[in-house]
């Protein structure tokens, strides 16, 4: 269900990148125009809730991704696929049905992302669509979930994170800390206070942002499926560790900085620390996995051949439907 040569006569099917970019730009602009209400919703959430403010960074993230993978993208550029049109139709249905039955915001947002995926597939074909799967996942991670869903899905994680973060805080010199509901109560010298006071989902914030960072770091280079699977497994402790680090940093800043319970300083310091830690964590994980895989490929050359030299080096992608 693919085809449609976009060059004259018997010319090779390799497409001019400028033409493909032009087509993508036109269709993406039309999708954003059609889903302008949904786009407004995403931007409004990004502005109002720090949990979703990584949405503002998405244009830069997308640009960086495209620049890092430009060789792969150029090599994979091919004829479009009619499955992309099917995906656009699916996205439309996802938008339309909840719109007439009830105003389900999240389903409508999913419709927008589905249409964007459809545009990539329709214009650039399977090869580029495969490379762009992380981009679609990143966009999905920018869609704000409802408060109810986030609360019910993160309560266990919040409790565990608070308990884990309280352990190092308990061992700070001249102080004590204990979990109190969804905050951590501390005593330092004669000063007492609470960490995370009135902060919603204090124990599980920034998880989508850390995952976006992880996707960005892992997929900026071409990696084999085995390495991606391993990095996916490693992403769980990295993201959870960054979350605990954020709470601990908040605590340390609040306790030693002497900031008030509702000061923004511990929040901002812990936020930057957690995001930088996520970047470093995923970077180190990639280095480690790539290093181990390279050593393994030297020790077992047969495996290397079998895996099609599926290392981390940029190389031409032969996939596509042409």
């Amino acid at each position, binding site marked *: 269900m693919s085809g*449609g*040569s*976009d*060059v*004259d006569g018997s010319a090779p099917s390799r497409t*001019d990148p*400028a*033409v493909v970019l*032009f*087509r993508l730009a*036109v*269709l993406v602009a*039309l*999708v954003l*125009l*059609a889903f302008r*209400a949904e786009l407004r919703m995403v931007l409004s959430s990004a502005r109002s809730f720090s949990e979703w403010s990584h949405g503002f960074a998405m244009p830069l993230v997308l640009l960086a991704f495209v620049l890092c993978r430009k060789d792969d993208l150029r090599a994979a550029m091919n*004829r*479009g*696929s*009619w499955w*992309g*049109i099917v995906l*656009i*139709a699916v996205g*439309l249905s996802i*938008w*339309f049905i909840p*719109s*007439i*039955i*009830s105003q*389900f915001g999240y389903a409508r947002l999913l419709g927008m992302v589905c*249409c964007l995926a*459809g*545009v990539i597939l*329709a*214009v650039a074909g399977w090869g580029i669509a495969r490379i762009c799967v992380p981009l679609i996942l990143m966009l999905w991670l920018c869609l704000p979930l409802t*408060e*109810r869903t986030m*609360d*019910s899905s993160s*309560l266990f994680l919040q409790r565990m994170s608070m308990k884990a973060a309280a352990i190092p805080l308990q061992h700070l010199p001249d102080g004590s800390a204990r979990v109190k*509901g*969804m*905050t951590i109560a501390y005593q330092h010298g004669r000063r007492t206070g*609470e960490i995370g*006071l*009135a*902060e*919603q*989902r*204090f124990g599980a914030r920034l998880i989508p942002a850390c995952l976006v960072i992880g996707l960005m770091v892992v997929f900026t280079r071409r990696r084999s499926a085995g390495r991606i699977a391993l990095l996916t497994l490693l992403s769980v402790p990295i993201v959870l560790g960054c979350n605990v680090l954020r709470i601990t940093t908040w605590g340390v800043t609040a306790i030693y900085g002497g900031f008030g*319970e509702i000061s923004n300083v511990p929040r901002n310091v812990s936020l930057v620390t957690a995001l930088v830690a996520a970047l470093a964590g995923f970077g180190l994980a990639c280095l480690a996995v790539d290093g181990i895989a390279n050593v393994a490929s030297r020790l077992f050359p047969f495996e290397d051949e079998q895996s099609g030299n599926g290392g981390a080096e940029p190389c031409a992608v032969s996939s596509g439907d042409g």
Partner: protein
Amino acid sequence: MPFLGRAIKQPQFVAGAVILMLMVVGMHAVARTAGAWLEKRPVPIRKPLRQMDRNKITGFRFVEDRGFGQAKFVETDEYLEWRLVPTERFKETQIAYLGVYFYTGSGKGLQIPHTPEVCYRQSGNQVTDMGKLEIPTPDLAPEIKSITATYVRMSHPTEVANKDICVAYVFCVNGKFFESREKARIQVGLPWNRAVYLAKIDCTVRVPAPHRLDAAIGACRLMLSRAIPELVREHFPRAVDIEAALAETAAESGARLGTSSASTAMGEP
């Protein structure tokens, strides 16, 4: 060949552009039209909530009716907010609130009210626990043997009186009970449910001690198990009332259509 000419050579691009342009122009209008066609008919309540028998909430003593002047905020005139005190079991919870809010009608569409985990947090509460609780309703058997409700435990950093509270809530749409707002929304939105009413029943109690959530949930269960049967039997519309409301609306629109045709025949605009 000019750049634009080459760009539109791809059939998928052309098809995608046509579909998306149609979406840009018409998708909101089509959704609005379909939404208007599926607009819900109102089903009036059988007996006003203000006439609810306080003595039916056994195990609790009525203290105060707080349901005045809130219509603007709760977006309905048909509601009640009572303050009660447990008299038999769960006395340690000290105080309890019962809220019932009834919605129906057309106009701008039937909106589903917010749930406590959303609106309480706007005053600084943090959600500390969430779950489901089963409310036995032997009085409504065999139609409804039990109802599942949602409970939310919330703590407030500064408020002294209600620092640690538990709110249990359940939605009722055309006689069916739902513990989640999303399920209630789907039920309200189903195209074949042409006449719809929606009610939110919630109960708020104080958690007496950090490890006594069970007492708070028990009090919520007791209060809802007393209130819901009374509401279903005496106040909420029955299936026949929904059918009657639907028939009445159909007759009204038929009559309107007849009048309109007659007016047009007589040359009136």
